[in-house]
């Protein structure tokens, strides 16, 4: 049985972490718990529920900067910025998630292709290290190179370095108009080629994905911006031999991108892999793993793969494409046997371990999950 603790102020959290580190015990940080089923099962661990750190600290829309406590629900953050006609540019998914969990999971949606990921929008933070010490890094302005960029490490750290208590994010204006254009019936290689050529024009796409949608393969390109600009950029794409692009209405477009963001076409697949490769390599990965269901986001650079092939084969194929594969869904047995993260070289693993120790010398956040 897991024990659950819920600190609400930073002093309490510092004491808690210091006490556990001193006893050589382990703590698992949890936001909304939506990603509990990622990584190896960890039955006997003490869970720290971070939702006690909730609320907005500072938000000044014209500065494009937002500071919130890490346990604030993502939905609340998104509603707050939407009310000012702004958005989180990394386009996160997540029902029931916290902003800290989203950041620690480093998961970004379709707009990541052109607007950057979590790493690109976390400007600074306050956290408690494995020593039980409060520290800050980064800043609260959009441009800053003072000291090491620890925000990059915290994005995608999966609770292994420090407990985020407050985060400062860069936000961006919400586009006035979004238009989604479709091509139908392409195979993955043709789709990736089309997406690459569209991204090679100055039409400035914001997102590009290829998926099975209402039973047929569609290649979806998205243009965001002011109305005259979207019209001009659509004309630009047509000029570049993508004349068959067919606009779909806004609701349909929203539904499509929502499906991509949440990988809905693969929602019921028992095993799900997240493979990041150079876009041109994605079709090769698909061909090498026959029988898999898949969805391509980021113009092919992100391949969601539902496949019961041998995990070693999947990882070998991803690596051959210059990429890596993360196991994000699987039953307990699979997750117990196969590490969630793609294995790194021994030298890199050793360096990562030293980096983790730099935050957490006693390994208090090392639950064995990853």
């Amino acid at each position, binding site marked *: 049985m897991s024990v659950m603790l819920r600190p609400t102020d930073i002093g309490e959290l510092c004491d808690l972490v210091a006490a556990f580190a001193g006893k050589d015990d382990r703590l698992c940080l949890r936001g909304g718990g939506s990603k509990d089923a990622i990584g190896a099962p960890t039955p006997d661990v003490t869970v720290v529920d971070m939702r006690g750190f909730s609320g907005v600290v500072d938000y000044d829309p014209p500065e494009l900067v937002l500071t919130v406590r890490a346990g604030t629900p993502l939905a609340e953050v998104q509603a707050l910025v939407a009310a000012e006609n702004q958005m989180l540019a990394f386009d996160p998914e997540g029902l029931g998630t916290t902003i800290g969990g989203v950041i620690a999971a480093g998961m970004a949606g379709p707009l990541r292709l052109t607007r950057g990921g979590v790493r690109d929008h976390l400007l600074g933070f306050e956290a408690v290290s494995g020593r039980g010490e409060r520290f800050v890094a980064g800043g609260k302005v959009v441009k800053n190179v003072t*000291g090491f960029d620890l925000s*990059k490490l915290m994005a995608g750290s999966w609770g292994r370095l420090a407990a985020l208590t407050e985060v400062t994010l860069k936000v961006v204006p919400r586009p006035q108009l979004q238009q989604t254009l479709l091509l139908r019936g392409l195979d993955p290689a043709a789709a990736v*080629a089309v997406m690459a050529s569209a991204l090679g024009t100055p039409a400035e796409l914001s997102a590009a994905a290829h998926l099975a949608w209402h039973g047929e393969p569609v290649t979806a390109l998205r243009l965001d911006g002011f109305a005259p600009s979207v019209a001009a950029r659509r004309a630009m794409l047509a000029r570049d031999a993508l004349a068959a692009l067919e606009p779909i209405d806004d609701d349909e477009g929203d539904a499509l991108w929502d499906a991509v963001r949440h990988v809905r076409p693969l929602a019921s697949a028992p095993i799900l892999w997240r493979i990041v490769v*150079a876009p041109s390599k994605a079709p090769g990965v698909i061909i090498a793993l026959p029988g898999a269901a898949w969805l391509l986001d980021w113009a092919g650079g992100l391949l969601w793969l539902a496949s019961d092939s041998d995990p070693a084969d999947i990882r070998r194929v991803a690596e051959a494409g210059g990429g890596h594969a993360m196991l994000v869904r699987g039953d307990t047995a699979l997750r117990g046997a196969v590490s969630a993260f793609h294995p790194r070289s021994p*030298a*890199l693993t050793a360096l990562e371990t030293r980096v983790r120790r730099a935050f957490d010398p006693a390994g208090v956040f090392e639950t064995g999950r990853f």
Partner: protein
Amino acid sequence: MSLCMPEPDAGVLARRAEIVAAMRAIVPGEGVIDHADGLRPYETDGLTAYRQPPLVVVLPETVAQVAAVLRWCRDHAVKVVPRGAGTSLSGGALPLADGVLLGMAKFNRILHVDYADRIAIVQPGVTNLAISRAVEDEGFYYAPDPSSQIACTIGGNVAENSGGVHCLKYGVTTNNVLGVELVTIDGEVLRLGGQGLESAGLDLLGLVVGSEGLLGVVTEVTVRILPRPETARALLIGFPELEGAGRCVGEVIAAGIIPAGMEMMDRAAIHAAEAFVNVGYPLDVEALLIVELDGPAAECAHLIEAVARIAEANGASSIRASSDDTERIAFWAGRKAAFPAAGRISPDYFCMDGTIPRRRLPDVLARMKLLSEQYGLGVINVFHAGDGNLHPMVLYDANVPGQLELAEAFGADILRLCVEVGGVLTGEHGVGVEKRDLMPAMFSAIDLAQQVELKHAFDPAALLNPGKVFPTLHRCAELGQMHVHGGKLPFPDLPRL
């Protein structure tokens, strides 16, 4: 107030001949420089107030040589300072008397360009501009554009996480780099990141970008390239009051417009620039704003009007929109000449680099004016207005005894002021030696210790670029300040932003 650097290790100095011989065994021929005349060009970087010839200069040509040099230096406890083109404005590439200066200039090849995946793989000594030149025929460019781009190297850009006037819309170096090859002080060759958008595991790439040569030596860089926008147009807007200009910047962004660049100059900067280049800047204004918009022609036309309306509503006294590229470039000419223009009105100047929340601009400029009176030194301001990155130039004359020290103190007060209003010590030039001792103004001892722990995870004996970034010196040697006077700066041909 002179610069303190780690006291040179007498043992290392005594072993100089042995160290030079060991370097020659690794890098044959012209690649090792040890005579005094040959060392002189390396004794400073873009922060010319501080100078120190290195123990020896080593210019490797292969990754294996870099690895062997680093491993040898680790085994023999010799410090190493990496160097690109030496344009750092914070003294990041300042040599150490007892250290090897590892110049990466010979790593100057573009290895691979992939237009389908929109990436370029280059060696670290390739200049920033050379990347854009290499891909321009296909209609692409590399977006981060520091104004030193004809000289500075991509390796230096990675180390400093450099920005440029277009980074408001396109991001700084870290947002445009996908992978690096890094050689650690142990001589281990690591690949961080790759050709995809995200790394497996911890984002060590993100940590290395902006680490100022303290974590390893970058031997290869994979960058994203972008298609060049169809058009670019600029607005030149004069304001009778600073507040109006500040509000205009905020409202442009609040309207959902992210210009490619948005630069501000104060009265002193406008007058200095206009006297230097005569491009027709209005002289009866307190602030001048240059707003550049890029994209399809229809988008530029639409946004030019929208920005002009916002400017008018905030009391702009003059608004001009460029009708062609010649005019657009003319708008920029004065801004780009701000540094040499400062050099004409003052024998010497320091260029500062703090960032503030934009809303605090009028307040910060008013207090800077008070400080200027208090110190009896002039200051002129150019400003990356879109992202709040200030570049105040503190004017002084090093030939007047005491003025250099006054200028240093004035500059430090400006940076403390940036931190006090919620900003930071450096927006793009790096901490280096220049802001090292100010780090405690922004970070607690625990915050800094956390960063130093990371440094030790890469470099436990602190042999890579010591004395930079972290104020951890117990014993130190005072560095002589042989100031270059009367505008005789290195890189005289570079536009200065």
